[in-house]
């Protein structure tokens, strides 16, 4: 009921002996120690555990760790990789726009939005709201999250 897996997360390889029923979200947090990925509902509704699998946002609570072998995973820890203390432009925009309060949902939002940032400047508010509909936030009322995405997208487009 267990097997050896090697998962690649943020370019690092993690070789572990795990039970096959172990959820990817639990591998990321408890085996790899990457606690930036948060676990909310554990049935695919809240979006807090969203990570990128081969560049695409997915729910890590709806995947088994063994299924991720051979794929490239990316978590929130990688967003500002190589930037030192500096934040990723999206994180910076969330910070400036007050796009978070308690911050529990934030990693999921960031990992959902980041792949579409390059084209987000062309999206209207309705389209942005549709794009984040798979992530729940109980603090902000979403208004400042939408503002943060617009700010980050504009900055990315301007190249500043």
């Amino acid at each position, binding site marked *: 009921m267990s097997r050896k897996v090697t998962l690649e997360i943020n370019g690092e390889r993690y070789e572990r002996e795990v039970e096959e029923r172990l959820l990817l979200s639990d591998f990321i947090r408890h085996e790899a120690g990457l606690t930036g990925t948060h676990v909310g509902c554990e049935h695919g509704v809240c979006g807090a555990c969203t990570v990128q699998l081969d560049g695409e946002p997915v729910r890590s609570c*709806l995947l088994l760790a063994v299924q991720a072998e051979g794929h490239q995973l990316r978590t929130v820890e990688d967003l500002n990789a190589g930037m030192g203390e500096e934040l990723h432009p999206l994180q910076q925009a969330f910070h400036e726009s007050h796009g978070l309060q308690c911050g529990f949902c934030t990693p999921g939002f960031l990992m959902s939005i980041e792949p579409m940032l390059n084209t987000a400047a062309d999206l209207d508010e309705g389209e942005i709201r549709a794009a984040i509909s798979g992530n729940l936030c109980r603090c902000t009322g979403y208004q400042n999250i939408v503002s943060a995405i617009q700010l980050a997208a504009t900055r990315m487009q301007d190249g500043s």
Partner: protein
Amino acid sequence: MKPAPFEYRDPRTVDEVIDVLAEHGEDSKILAGGQSLVPLLNFRLAQPAMLVDINRVEELSFLRCSAGVLTIGATCRQATLEQSIFAQARWPLLGEAVDLVAHSQIRNRGTVGGSAAHADPAAELPVALSCLDARFNIRSASGTRTVGADEFFSTHLTTVIEPDELLVSIEVDPPPAGAGYAFCEYSRRHGDFALGGAAVQLADGEVRIALLGASDTPLRATEAEQALAGQQIDAETAAEAGELAVREVEPTGDIHGSGEYRRRLTATMVKRALLLAADRDGREAA
């Protein structure tokens, strides 16, 4: 909120899957995209002894159009269908339906075949496939059989797929050129399960109407289809067809809406879908 222990197999070919199912079919569940099954595992509402993961079966992940027919491999992701330019252009009803499935993170992983095999009557893809008279290719050790959408869905969360069988692909014939189409549904929040909905296709006087969440399976409103065949579709005839479509149905009520509310809603969705489809009828897809 963690799955109960299970034995896990991840075969690489359809033949290997069939071999595993021949031996363990009764105690196993097939894992495709997992966007419905894994929540059930996490809640322990499903506790199969074995999970047969078909995500590493490369021969099942295709989406292709050959001789005009769209063939969707069992593990073709919903996002693949959504982003397919040829599928969107030639099968716009499927495109409109898949856009309404949950959220992008779910569609990146969820499969068309998995949604069909899960057979939730409130899911969009089974309703669209029913409206399009899709065919389901099912394989077991004793060979392949093909089942039409009218037979495929048996009841709530149940299809005709036997424990030793695997849904390998879904085929959809091309709609007549310029056919009118519409998928309309109402949900409280974007991406939530809809409380009611309808898929419509209009072509050459033929009317097809499939209802979402009105019964234990996707339901073709045959009486309304026949009454409207060859008729001019306007606000009045569309409203009548909506009434006819829900005359015999009794949707189940729950905390999100009573059965009667859902019935009224379904009639309205039929009317809206008919009018939208009529408006699009005869126009080439963009």
